[in-house]
Each structure stands twice: as structure tokens, then as C-alpha cells.
């Protein structure tokens, strides 16, 4: 870009500047070719591995089909009706919703609190940040295998509770024994155990996201608030939190979508059991579609999952993320 502060003198020849390349407008023939060449590999992969499977699922979803042989038994929307009426599928949707709500009410505030603490000057701050982020780096399968061992009856979690519990005031070892249960084997608590493990794995990610958000807030604003007489809480509530809005909204989005996609961790630890207590939409799909040779039904369930996720994502984009997309600061 040419920025000239000195006024041009009359008569002085204008120095020739190279013609700027057109940034906008229709690309030339050659550019079209280049564009096509560059896009087509991605496009081919996208069509082959995203569009084609979705279309196939749609096709399967209106047949009764055991995965072998040709599609012949057309059943219309029966598979969808069955899924809607299936208490197991409804329970799976409910479990995903429970994980989403718990993530928003427990995991998010926890991550936010840690982010605020670790944004302050603190000895060993870097170490803590790395430590809290570390679980996120593990694969879900590794996490699942490790926690399955920790949570097993008489496993490390039980042992720690037995040892540490009675040291606390007002806690007897009998009440600890009463509290201890098969964390993954009791249908009443298995889902919450899994939520705990999910939180252990993912709070670090949200903490880092929020930390980055916090560091984007200029100190001058907090100083200004302080000069205006705002206390620490008021400064946090009326300056920090609003400016953190876009980051929080992205975190919420990731949590909700993530909750509806939980699969690996559940599959490794409980396979959706006991008695379906930890079935998520994805494990339901694998168990009742793939696992039982009912690929038509599986197709219908996968379309439903796709629709539910898509509607959620679009609504969120439309009503919550719109301001961020338009460039609002808060």
C-alpha cells in the first residue's frame, strides 16, 4: 500500500507503481483451472466420505436390511417410528441431554474459575496450566481404559475414599463404605461417573480456551473500572464476563455438540450399560444397528442423530452466535 505524507509537487513525475493484482472479481481462465485443481481433491473426498454415506444412510433407513444381500424389504418410515417409540433411544437422547446440562452447570464454571485463577500471577502457573490441559491430550480410549481400572470395585478410587474419607471431620469409615458403590456397575450412578471422567478429560480444553479469552481483555478496562470504584466482583461481573462472552459461547457450543457425540469413552468403559444406563445416541446406534445386524434401522437412527445435532447447531448459530459472527465484542 502506498502512503505518501508529502504533498506531490506539481510537475514532478509520478513514480510508476506496479499495477496491483486484482484481489476481487472473476478470476481468469487460468485461475479457474488452478481453483478447480486445488479444490477437486478436497471436494472429491468430501462427496465420497461425507455426502455419499449420508445419502446411503437415507436410502438404508427406509428398508429392513440385515446388512447382507440386496435391499428389497421396503418399510417406509417404520424404522423412524420404531426409533421414536423406543424407550432405549429416548433414554439415549436423555442421557446426552443430561451430560450436556451437567457440562454447562458444573464443568463450565469449574473451567472458568480455574482460568481466572491461572490468569493471575501465581507460582508454578505454567506447570498448572500444562497439568490441567494434559488429560485432553490423551485419547478417549486411553482415558476410558485408565478410568475403568481406577473406578472398578476395590480399585484406586475406592481405596482413596476409604483412606482419606475418615480423616475428614464428621465422616466415619462406615459412612464412607455406605457411599462407595460400583461406580460403573450401578445403573443409578454409572452415567454420573462417566460425566466425571468426561469432565476430567475436557475441562482443561475449556480452561485453555477461556484463558486465551481472558488474556484478550485489555487491563486498561479493569483499571478504568477500578478507578470508577468497582470492586473485584463487580469488575469481574461487569467487565470481564461480558468481554469473555464470545469465548464462553464457543465453549458452550463445543460442550453441547460434544455431549451429543460421546462414544469412545462410553464404549470402552461400559458399552452403554449397565442395563442401558449410559447409552448415548452414538452407542445406541452401534449397539442396535451394527451390533444386531439391523442396518436399515441403524440408518434411520443415524439420520435422527444427524437431524438432532444439525438443528441444535443451527439454532445456536442463529440465536446465540450471530452477534459474534457479526463482530460484536460482548
Amino acid at each position: 500500500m502506498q502512503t505518501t505524507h508529502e504533498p506531490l509537487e506539481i510537475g514532478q513525475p509520478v513514480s510508476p507503481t506496479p499495477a496491483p493484482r486484482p484481489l476481487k472479481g472473476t478470476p481468469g481462465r487460468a485461475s479457474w483451472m488452478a481453483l478447480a485443481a486445488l479444490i477437486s481433491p478436497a471436494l472429491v473426498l468430501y462427496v465420497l466420505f461425507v455426502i455419499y454415506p449420508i445419502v446411503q444412510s437415507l436410502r438404508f433407513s427406509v428398508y429392513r436390511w440385515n446388512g447382507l444381500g440386496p435391499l428389497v424389504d421396503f418399510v417406509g418410515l417404520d424404522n423412524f417410528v420404531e426409533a421414536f417409540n423406543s424407550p432405549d433411544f429416548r433414554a439415549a437422547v436423555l442421557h446426552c441431554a443430561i451430560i450436556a446440562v451437567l457440562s454447562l452447570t458444573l464443568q463450565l464454571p469449574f473451567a472458568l474459575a480455574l482460568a481466572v485463577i491461572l490468569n493471575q500471577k501465581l507460582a508454578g502457573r505454567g506447570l498448572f496450566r500444562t497439568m490441567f490441559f494434559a488429560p485432553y491430550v490423551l485419547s478417549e480410549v486411553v482415558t476410558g481404559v485408565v478410568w475403568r481400572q481406577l473406578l472398578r470395585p476395590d480399585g484406586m478410587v475406592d481405596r482413596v475414599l476409604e483412606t482419606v474419607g475418615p480423616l475428614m471431620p464428621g465422616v466415619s469409615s462406615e459412612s464412607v463404605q455406605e457411599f462407595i458403590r460400583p461406580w460403573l456397575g450401578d445403573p443409578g450412578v454409572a452415567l454420573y461417573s462417566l460425566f466425571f471422567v468426561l469432565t476430567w478429560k475436557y475441562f482443561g480444553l475449556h480452561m485453555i480456551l477461556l484463558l486465551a479469552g481472558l488474556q484478550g481483555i485489555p487491563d486498561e478496562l479493569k483499571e478504568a473500572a477500578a478507578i470508577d470504584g468497582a470492586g473485584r466482583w463487580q469488575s469481574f461481573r461487569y467487565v470481564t464476563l461480558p468481554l469473555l462472552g464470545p469465548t464462553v459461547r464457543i465453549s458452550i457450543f463445543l460442550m453441547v455438540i460434544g455431549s451429543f457425540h460421546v462414544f469412545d469413552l462410553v464404549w470402552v468403559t461400559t458399552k452403554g450399560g449397565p442395563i442401558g444406563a449410559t447409552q448415548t445416541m452414538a452407542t445406541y446406534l452401534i449397539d442396535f444397528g451394527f451390533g444386531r445386524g439391523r442396518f436399515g434401522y441403524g440408518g434411520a437412527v443415524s439420520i435422527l442423530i444427524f437431524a438432532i445435532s444439525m438443528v441444535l447447531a443451527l439454532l445456536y448459530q442463529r440465536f446465540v452466535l450471530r452477534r459474534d459472527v457479526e463482530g460484536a465484542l460482548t
Partner: protein
Amino acid sequence: MRSKTFNRWAALVAVLAMLLAACGGGNAGDTTTATDAPAPEESPTTEGPDDTEAPSSTEGGGEAEPVTIEWWHIQNQGAMLELWQTMADEFVEMNPHVTFDIVVNENEAFKDAIEPRLQSNDPPDLFQSWGGGDLADQVEAGLVREISEEAGDFIGDLSAGAVSLFEVDGGVYAIPFDLGMVGFWYNKELFAQAGIDAPPTTWDEFLEDVQALKDAGITPIAVGGQDKWPAHFYLAYLILRIGGQPALEEIAANQDFNHPAVIEAGNQLQRLVELEPFQDGFLASTWPGPDGEAGWIGTQRAAISLMGQWGPGEYANSGSHGDPNDLPSERLPFEMGWFPFPEVEGGVGDLNDGIGGGNGFAVGRDAPPEAVEFLQYITSVENARRTGETGAILPVTIGAEDSVTEPLMVPLLESLAASGFVQLYLDQYFPEAVGAAINDETQKLFAGSTTIEDAIEAINAAFASN
């Protein structure tokens, strides 16, 4: 173990060697065959389909076209894993034009891994089969080959009862190599501690013994509740003992579980469940593994396990005892016993009738004839005896029965020999969706979260949806 990866490399080496030989001219005779290379120690692979089959060099193989036999089995541990490899190597030695491509999976992993291959209409040449509803589906889809004629030479050498499990509409589609029966394996030392001197012969006695074990502070029963099928043995046996063979035949013929024998079986099962006899967290327990049913038995934390002939080997594996090549009874640091599922008062089923099943290898549609020849080789009397000697397999070749020297198997084999009727495991016998529903509902019955009436309704709904 010869895996796909290895074969690919071997093929590459062979091709390169041939190229080099061709370049060198005159030295072509020096090319080594890929199949002669020593098999590397590799972990079981679960790789998917592979179209580029490893060619073996034809030199020394006479006129025969090189063929590859892709073989999927689930004997993924212990002596059988090695023995299958040895037999494949021996077969290659006799037929140098044959190359093996062996894929080994754990039981549950196999079920997941085989599905895409079947679905893509590309079955392996030989693969694990339990017969029943799954095999019937594969036959209907034209994925497996009828070998009644091809294997006519040697089918007669096998126990007719075992072969019948792998027949669909009168045609044979798989060759069995193992047939056994489910029964109670128990820890004699823990029984003695609880003051029980003889195994129970009636269901009421069984329940009393369970209570006695509990009173002695011993976990009476370990069950792999998460895997579900170990729990389904209880329901299946109760139906068999209460209603006998006719009840099971009626259920199958009418595709209707609403049968008095099933309802009574549910009530009897509830009596057991109410005693809370299972290990802590049994609903999250699998069959194998240190936390699994087998681990609880193998480490003497529980006394009883209702399981098939593969039980003792896995108790030793999951309890990390001894050398996998030794007999289970030598590996286990405690004394075990076996007793058949007890009779139920008022039931019409015979004590020797069993829930059981076999393992066999189905022959893929496009398998080379050599695959069937190989099945003949592994089920010959001499080789069947070698499988029996491992103590992990109960061979079905006539004349090989007494090769089972494992003392733990003796009572099981006696019961099997005396039995007039063996019902295939219900979850394998019925179509996949129905089998899965039976397992699901049994798990719920074990958890006390459903009634037998609701369970029957759910299983019948699976019949309707299939």
C-alpha cells in the same frame, strides 16, 4: 503368526528378489519363496480387506497356481494360537503353492470385525462360525459355500451332532472342530470353606449352597454381566430344565417366548437374583480380564461360574497363572470341579441335556478348494488329537475324544456323551436381533429392573422387527 503386514512385506521382498534375479539373468533359480521365511512374532491384527493378495512364488510348487487362504480365527491366546499356526505351516510345507493370511481376533472383536467384510460381499476364505441364526443369514446372502459334496470325504469322520449345528436346510456350510457344553465350574476349596461337601443336584440345593457361600463371606457367583451372554446361560438352562427339549422347540417354531417354561424360568432366576450372589459391580464386568468373570474365578475371589468348555483356560489366563502352553488344571493354583446345571423341581428336562455349542470354520463363497482341504487336514484324527491335548478344545473327530487329557474336562465329556439333546446357545441360535434382545433382557433380569413378562414382550418384539 503370519499377518497381513508381514505378507505384504514378504510379497514385496519376493517381487524385488524376482526383479533382481531377472536383472542378473541366469540366476533366477536363487529366488527364495516368501512362505519359507520365518514367521515373526506379531500381535493379532484386525486389518480390513486387502485386495492385493500376497503371491507366493510358484517355484518348487509344480504346476499349481499360487493361492492365498485368508483365515480368521478367535483362538487368540495360549496353546491353540500356536497350534493353528503350526498346522498352517505344515499345510504350506505339503502344498507350497498355498500361502496363509491369518487374522486373529478376540471373540467380541471378531464379531465387529467380520461384519464389514460380510457386508462388502467379501468374506474371508475360512472364518469362525457358531452356526445358528448368523450362519443362516450368511447362507441366505450367498456369502458362504455349501461344502456337503466337497467335504463329503471327511464329514462322516466327524460327530454328526456337531456337524448338524452347521447345517442350514440340510446343507453343510462349516466344519466344526470343537463341541462342548456349558456347566458350573466351581472352586472346590471355597466350597469346602463354606462347608459344602458335594455339588448340588437340584436348583433348591444350588440356592442353599449359594446362601452358604454368602454366609461364609465368599462371593458365590461371578458373572460377566456387561457382556450379557454369560448371564443368558442361566435363563437358557432354566428354560431347558423346566420345559425340556419340547419347550425350546415350541418357542423356536412359534417364534414366541410367551411360554410357561420361560415364565417359570424367570421366576426361578428371580429367586437367585434376590440372594444377591454376584460379584461387586457384576453389571460392568466382562467375561475375560482381571475384573471379568474369569478374573474373579481365577483369583479365587468368587466360587462359581456358569461357562463352557473354554472356561478353565480363561480362568488361568485372566488370573495370570502359569504357562499358557500347560493344561489349565496345572496352571490354576487351586482345585476346580464341574457339575451340570442342576434339575429344577417339577421340571421335565433331563440333567444331561445341555446348552452348548461348537466352534467351526465357515467356508467363504470364493474360497479356493485348498481351504476345504485344509479343514480336512486340521480335523483329521491325528490333528484333532493335537487340539484335544491342549485342553482348550473338545475335538469332534470320531476317535479323538480321548485325546482330552485335561482332568477338568472329564465330567463335562461324560455329561456330553450321555446327553440326548444339546441346545445351541440361545443368542446364537436365534437371529442376531433376537439373540441380542435375549441378552439385553437377561441383563435387566439380573439387575432386577424388569419382570419376566416385560422381558418376554421385548424379546417377542425383536422377533417381529427381524
